């Protein structure tokens, strides 16, 4: 039987990722340690849409500056390198994740909103529980569902949609039973094809079922919990609905109780509203 990587290699084309996104991911995860990496400001300046997105945030009412920032250098001094990277990555990822994913019942922009909500949730969990690097958690959760982009190419789209519309029970288990693999596996393979770092590939691979053996890593639990939170908030939910299992050990390991969960949910909802308002994007019915 062909492996997921082999299935992916056999395809005529794969979903694409803009170079700016992989560069921003490298900078965000590297924490400025790679001297050969291109400075974030240069990556942003090369792309007019990214520049506009960053300047919008730097000039937002929330920051309270009376004079408008007109350059990326000024924006950088206002929001800081770390924040600038995340704004740029959140915006740039729309090019890869913003389209419709019809097989899963996700309309234009819905997959990206789900990715973004998960990213904010993961960052919030990592900060609150101090169990992982918030930047890595943000990036891993942002990319966790990239497998859904490729599933309709790797299998019969009709078969996949039929399974999602008619079946009952955990979607990941049903994907495996019906198609032989699931969207988390194909996502990790796609991430490998995109050249993403190994830690992100595993976070994608395990985002529905973090392992409890030697492979265990709190990052996977953070991304799993963030995924559940994005679903609870209604972001990026399609034909599959909330038909996923929640792994209790992840919440226990991270020390996320009801209070922490509700605090992070509130934070995510507010950050989503704020980010979309700053970017001039419509507020979804989530």
């Amino acid at each position, binding site marked *: 039987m062909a492996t997921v990587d082999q299935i992916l290699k056999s395809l005529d084309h794969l979903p694409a990722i803009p170079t700016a996104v992989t560069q921003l991911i490298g900078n965000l995860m590297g924490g400025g340690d790679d001297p050969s990496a291109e400075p974030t400001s240069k990556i942003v300046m090369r792309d007019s849409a990214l520049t506009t997105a960053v300047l919008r945030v730097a000039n937002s009412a929330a920051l309270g500056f009376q004079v408008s920032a007109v350059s990326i250098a000024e924006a950088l001094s206002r929001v800081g390198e770390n924040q600038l990277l995340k704004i740029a990555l959140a915006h740039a990822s729309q090019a890869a994740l913003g389209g419709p994913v019809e097989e899963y019942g996700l309309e234009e922009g819905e997959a990206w909103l789900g990715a973004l909500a998960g990213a904010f949730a993961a960052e919030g969990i990592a900060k609150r529980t101090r169990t992982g690097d918030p930047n890595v958690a943000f990036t891993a959760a942002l990319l966790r569902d990239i497998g859904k982009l490729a599933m309709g190419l790797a299998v019969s789209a009709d078969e996949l949609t039929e399974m999602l*519309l008619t079946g009952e029970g955990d979607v990941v288990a049903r994907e495996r039973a019906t198609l032989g693999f699931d969207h988390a596996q194909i996502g990790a393979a796609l991430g490998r094809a995109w050249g993403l770092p190994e830690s992100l590939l595993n976070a994608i691979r395990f985002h529905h079922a973090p392992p409890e053996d030697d492979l265990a890593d709190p990052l996977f639990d953070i991304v799993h919990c963030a995924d559940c939170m994005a679903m*609870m908030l209604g972001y990026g939910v399609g034909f599959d*609905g909330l038909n996923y299992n929640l792994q*209790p050990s992840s919440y226990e390991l991270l020390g996320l109780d009801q209070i922490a969960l509700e*605090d992070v949910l*509130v934070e995510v*909802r507010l950050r989503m509203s704020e980010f979309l308002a700053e970017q001039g994007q419509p507020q979804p019915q*989530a």
Partner: protein
Amino acid sequence: MLHYMLGQPRDKEKARKNPFMYAVSGVPALFRSMYEMGSQKENLIVCAAGGSEILDDKVGFSIGMKNRTILRKMFWKNGIVLHAEDTGGSAARHMLLDLETGRVNLRIKNQEVELWRP
């Protein structure tokens, strides 16, 4: 139409700033604004949808169930009749209100179903 996220806030300041995120602040605010616009309690048609949950919530967060319970409690205490509802389960629902006809439809998966019509 109100889409609340949680039953009640832990922090009252958060509810003051974002009343529509919580049932205890959002539902009264919705009804108040409708009464201010001339609605009368006995004429109101009230529908509810949502309150879904992750399929297998062994942790017991049960946010959907809590959201459903608090709504029923508030309606019972205030004598509000719920005319139609489709709540619980693990499906995602989009509520559609047709302002011309007064019909309330739900989009679940790829189907639109009627929740209430005059």
